[in-house]
């Protein structure tokens, strides 16, 4: 029997999709402005990693399934593997490289080290960026699946362990550091709320 790989890249696929047409975009990453001609096919993740050498955002699945590529876009967490770079013109992007203040770690980074909330470390930058988003979302009163139905609408959500687990479930960790990650996020939330050094840095 004869079978062949389908002739992908032909047929209905527009020619520009396979020839690498480029457009110029302005990306503001960790406070630095970059003007880049990006391939229309490039994801934000690949531009960060391959063009800007910001390797903190990781490629775990490239399909929005694992969360390793999580960054903040205009302050909101997003899977950078699902965003086309060409569509991010003018946006503010925060990656894990943008969190520490010089040599001083962000409270989340400190807490992850102290709690040993990581092993191989590959999901860690995504976990930390995601946690940053969680802290802000909870502070802004965004409910989650486990938020009590009678919680004050718009009021700050108390980040219980259940809340953290629920809100962090888009970030897979195969080493199984979840219990320590939950503790680290709670620690950092406490430190930030108590006004200890560092801030959430989420707003860019």
């Amino acid at each position, binding site marked *: 029997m004869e079978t062949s790989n389908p002739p992908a890249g032909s047929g209905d696929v527009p020619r520009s999709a396979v020839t690498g047409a480029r457009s110029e975009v302005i990306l503001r990453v960790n406070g630095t402005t970059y003007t880049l001609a990006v391939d229309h096919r490039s994801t934000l993740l690949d531009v960060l990693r391959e063009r800007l050498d910001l*390797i903190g955002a990781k490629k775990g699945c490239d399909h929005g399934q694992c969360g390793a590529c999580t960054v903040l876009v205009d302050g909101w967490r997003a899977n950078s593997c699902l965003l086309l770079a060409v569509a991010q013109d003018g946006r503010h992007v925060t990656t894990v490289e943008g969190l520490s203040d010089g040599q001083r770690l962000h409270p989340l980074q400190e807490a992850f*080290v102290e709690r*040993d909330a990581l092993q191989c470390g590959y999901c860690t930058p995504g976990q930390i960026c995601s946690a940053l988003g969680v802290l802000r979302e909870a502070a802004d009163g965004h409910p989650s699946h486990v938020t009590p139905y009678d919680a004050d609408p718009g009021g700050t959500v108390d980040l219980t362990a259940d809340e953290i687990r629920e809100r962090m*479930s888009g970030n897979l960790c195969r*080493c199984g550091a*979840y219990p320590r990650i939950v503790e680290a996020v709670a620690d950092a939330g406490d430190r930030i709320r108590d006004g200890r050094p560092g801030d959430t840095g989420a707003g860019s």
Partner: protein
Amino acid sequence: MPPAPHPLSAPLLRREGREKVTGAARYAAEHTPPGCAYAWPVPAIVARGRITAVDTADALALPGVLAVLTHENAPRLAALEDPTLAVLQNDRVPHRGWYVALAVADSLETARAAAEAVRVAYDTAGYDVRLTAGHPGLYTPEEVNGGYPAVRERGDFDAAFAAAPVTVDATYTVPPLHNHPMEPHASTARWYDGHLTVHDTSQGSTRVRDDLAALFTLGKDEVTVVSEHVGGGFGCKGTPRPQVVLAAMAARFTGRPVKLVLPRRQMAAVVGHRAPTLQRVRLGAGTDGLITALAHEVATHTSTITEFTEQAAVPARIMYRSPHSRTTHRVVPLDIPTPSWMRAPGEAPGMYALESAVDELAVALGRDPVELRIRNEPETEPDSGRSFSSRHLTACLQAGAERFGWLPRDPRPALRREGDLLLGTGVAASTYPVYLAPATAEAHAAADGSYRIRINATDIGTGARTVLAQVAAAALGAPEDRVRIEIGDSDLPPAVLAGGSMGTGSWGWAVHKAATALVARLRAHQGPLPAQGIGTTADTGQETAAPSPYSRHAFGAQFAEVQVDTVTGEVRVRRLLGVFAAGRILNSRTARSQFIGGMTMGLGMALTEGSGLDPAFGDFTECDLASYHVPASADVPAVEAHWLDEDDPHLNPMGSKGIGEIGIVGTAAAVANAVWHATGVRLRDLPLTPDKVLPRLPVRPH
């Protein structure tokens, strides 16, 4: 003078923690040499056959494409023992997903587009991807993974089983499982002046270096493989995988550095998987609860290109007293991807079946499952008669029961309700062997009072850097922060991979030996150190070659509490608690993380993880992280790991057993046994997903 610091067992922070939380740690694909090109593989879309034609014209016509490698133009490789590395060498397709071409381009996007534009025609043949208990192709291999004999018999199992007043005869199945480390397999390769340098994600770059040298007919000194940071492995990076060969080939072919990251969806077909197992366990016991007959018979699959037999019946040879015993393995070669190591190969699936059967026996006998296990503790290893170097399973069971609050426990099932939920508890034992392998290490004392240890150990997330610094510091009598550790580079003194839970024991022994020798040299040295310092080298070839007269294993006990939703059939774990006896624990902080990580993977094995081979297409249906469900944070509630202080002088100078794998062993049985206790339903096919649970529940509301 104050006493010398003794940093063993201290909960030191992992050394590379800061690099990992700031994004500074570079993994294999995060090196981009000038002129770096990108590769994207083309997998076969047929389950068996031969390539009849490859049309690369459209791919090569794309702007920026540098090459398309196929079996017609790829560099020839020397034959190696591992046929999965013989990529692009001939027209044969042994399974779906086998690589048939590799596109190389100056950008990732173009490489991907080019790979999709490659047209491959095949002459296909019939194929078989289904493992069944009665498969006519099943045969008994000579040995199984780990080098164990496939079959062991003691006494007269059949007669003893027939005579036993209480028996269990049950078959348990574990589906194919995928390792899925968060970092996909990746390599960045470059040739410079005849020297091949590769950043590879590997659990052991010495072996990768050796295999690349053999494949490309180079001297070992002409290849360097660096695995500085590795994003998990769990066995599937234990030996070289095709991506490192493809990257090196493409770099040689194009004359450019080449980076290759395997797409997640392709990994299942080319990086190995845990083979499925069909396991029949038969236990016979007297009414006194003593096991008199034990049989564990395993059927599993392998590929047509290499024989790998998951050694699931091996733990039954050491676990319980069993005067009459039979443990067997049979394997059938199918037209499937080659299985390989996944965390605790053999023990993880085997102990699921054995520990489920022991629970069934406890129910049949009307005995507490903790008490039944303690009652059947053997004096010596049942299989060999050798003494155990240390065995504290009883203590683990007792300490775990105490901490968990096992008693009082009504053994009757399906009694505890919370609204729509049924609750239950379960227990299972864990075990993992102590392996040791030779390693070489250098220890160096600098004139400024600092020390340096060099050894090609690999830190795949275990905390190897940190614990080796502790071992060195203890031997040197020096503060740990005065010791620099260099690992993760094949130019360093050679050492075994991070696998088989033997890294710390094997590397640590060499580090200890080198550091101890250095201390002796420093004592003998008169006056200030020379400017270049003083160094020693040690290898443990001799020490590790001597067979131990002891049976050496770590043991543990795991307890689970589950809730089963009678409306949806969903099982959720409420609590997991493990107590382990694994020699001396060298860093309590990183060790706890490893135990809990293993238990979490075991939770996945119990409830969410399962793959299958599609009989229509011959590929793994659950090939990505959307369909293959590794546990997420919300699946993992309270998980606690504890350990006993175990003093075992028959291991290595640190007195340590491995801890990387035992955490996954027994978890699935503890969870499944808890599901029985919650519901009264004995489910014997993992994972325990709602589609299997719901139809079997005795009480269907409304």
